[in-house]
């Protein structure tokens, strides 16, 4: 058990590094309503958010605090594997600190499924992530899901590497 936790933490740390290197997907469509990223080009205009300029409980805070906002899946799969659990655990910890924050989980697929099947598969993936967060004590009422099927790929190639990146569920803080 102890050994397992250590592995998890190391795994999470590694993923956190990877998460920093990974650019926030620019391809995501805008969330409902207008959202403002407190980090976006404010240049520290004195919003009373401390030295980092990150509002606690904000989308930016989430991005900085969790191992990653994204988990990945195998081909035509939607199970939450060990690395995905580590990522979702970090998200659950953060969400437990900010009980008023709501999130939406986006389910995405690679281009190797037909359009309508992929909408259903993306829904499966988003719901698998949501269910896991619920088992970690996050109220389902705080979580919505949306499937984008194969409509919003993150990596643009038609190769195994791109497809692996595109099979994903992304947690987005609603503000």
């Amino acid at each position, binding site marked *: 058990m102890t050994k397992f936790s250590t592995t998890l933490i190391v795994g999470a740390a590694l993923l956190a590094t990877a998460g920093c290197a990974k650019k926030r997907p620019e391809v995501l*469509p*805008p969330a*409902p309503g207008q959202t403002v990223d407190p980090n976006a080009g404010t240049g520290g205009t004195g919003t009373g958010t401390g030295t980092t300029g990150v509002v606690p409980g904000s989308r930016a805070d989430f991005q900085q605090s969790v191992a990653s906002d994204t988990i990945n899946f195998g081909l035509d799969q*939607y199970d939450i594997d060990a690395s995905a659990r580590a990522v979702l655990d970090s998200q659950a910890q953060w969400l437990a600190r900010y009980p008023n924050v709501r999130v939406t989980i986006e389910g995405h697929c690679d281009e190797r499924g037909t359009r309508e*099947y992929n909408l*259903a598969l993306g829904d499966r993936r988003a719901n698998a992530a949501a269910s896991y967060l619920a088992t970690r004590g996050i109220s389902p009422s705080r979580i919505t899901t949306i499937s984008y099927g194969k*409509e*919003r*790929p993150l990596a*643009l190639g038609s190769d195994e590497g791109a497809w692996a990146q595109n099979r994903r569920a992304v947690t987005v803080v609603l503000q």
Partner: protein
Amino acid sequence: MRKLTLALGAALASVLAAPAAFAQVEVDIEGGISEPLPIAVPVMPTPQVASTPAGSTDALGRQLAEIVAGDLRNSGLFKPAGPSGLPAVAMAQVQSPDYAVWSGAQALVQGYVRAEANGTLTIGCYLYDTFGRTELTRQGFNVPPAEWRRAAHKCADAVYTRLSGEGPYFDSRIVYVSETGPKGKRIKRLAIMDQDGANHRFLTNGQSIVLTPRFAPNQQSIVYMSYVNERPAIYILDLGTGRQRLLVQNASLTFAPRFSPDGRYVLFSMAQAGNTDIYRVPAGGGSPQRLTNAPGIDTGGSYSPDGSKIVFESDRSGTQQLYVMNADGSNQQRISFGGGRYATPVWSPRGDLIAFTRQGGGSFRIGIMSPSGGGEKLLSDAWGDEGPSWSPNGRVLTFFRSAQGSGKTQIWSVDLTGSNIRRIPTALDGSDPSWGPIRP
């Protein structure tokens, strides 16, 4: 007369029926090799040159003949000559052809165009057997100038129907998704066009992702899926008013809509907590009725033309396969058993075939099989062909082709032999085509 019928009958027997070819899984090139019927389509004369909102009547006479020849050529069953390079036809000859001139062709299409005092156009269309020296059919169309192209399509349909025995399909439209922008954030707009790509117009502005449009049987509306307000759901767009309404209220993800043949219901899929089933709902709105309840993804439902059965795809066996059930959801039977995955089934309007997307070996291809699952045949062979939709006569399919890497999309059509495969021109990229019924 006899000669013409016999010659075309032989060609059609191999092109349209090809019973032996259906037994093969591979694309059968042999099935498509039959001599197209030589047919002459000279310029249609006008009794008096007049200026109309559609152009002068003598220019229209040439354009009408070009459209008729284009339709017949695209069907793969005809080898049209003209209108360029053919002798001029005098008005007096339209109903009394100079057969000696046309002996190089087996059939002859003549016609005329006349501007009426009330602002409409009259187009006459005549089909002759040049060997038997007999008239085979004639039709006249009176249209507003804006619909002059439809008269040409109706004329081509009259020729095609008379000589092939098949139903018409040229005077019909295709609704599809027009695509622009980079692969990662495609802008998608509903668009509608004639089956030959003409009269193109957009129906939505691209603010929301739109997917999988389908014509209502009466062609007054289109059912489709949209991400309005980032809530993916099914909408019905009224083509007359341009208004759209949400079909199923207070639902989770709803998608994969198709009208019932009588237009009274919409078959659709709803995903709830990761499980997807097929439902139907009155087209005017109301309570959905659940038709499947197997664990897994049941989607892509499509009615048989008599409305008594539904073909759909399900991954309940572990991979996507095709199933047929009664319209009330009872008696669900698997009909596809090949390797790979089968998806997007659509029942032919003739009832005799089901078209689908087959995935395997790293590619998506369009195929057909009988409603009992026999006689599977693949019609296309590219990296990413998906989403077939039947022509009104059940003899041609339209689908979309995605390019590996770029993700660029094009609309294509293919006949049942698989040999007459061609692109339908669109100004921008296009996907999810749905072929509408023949126009009244």
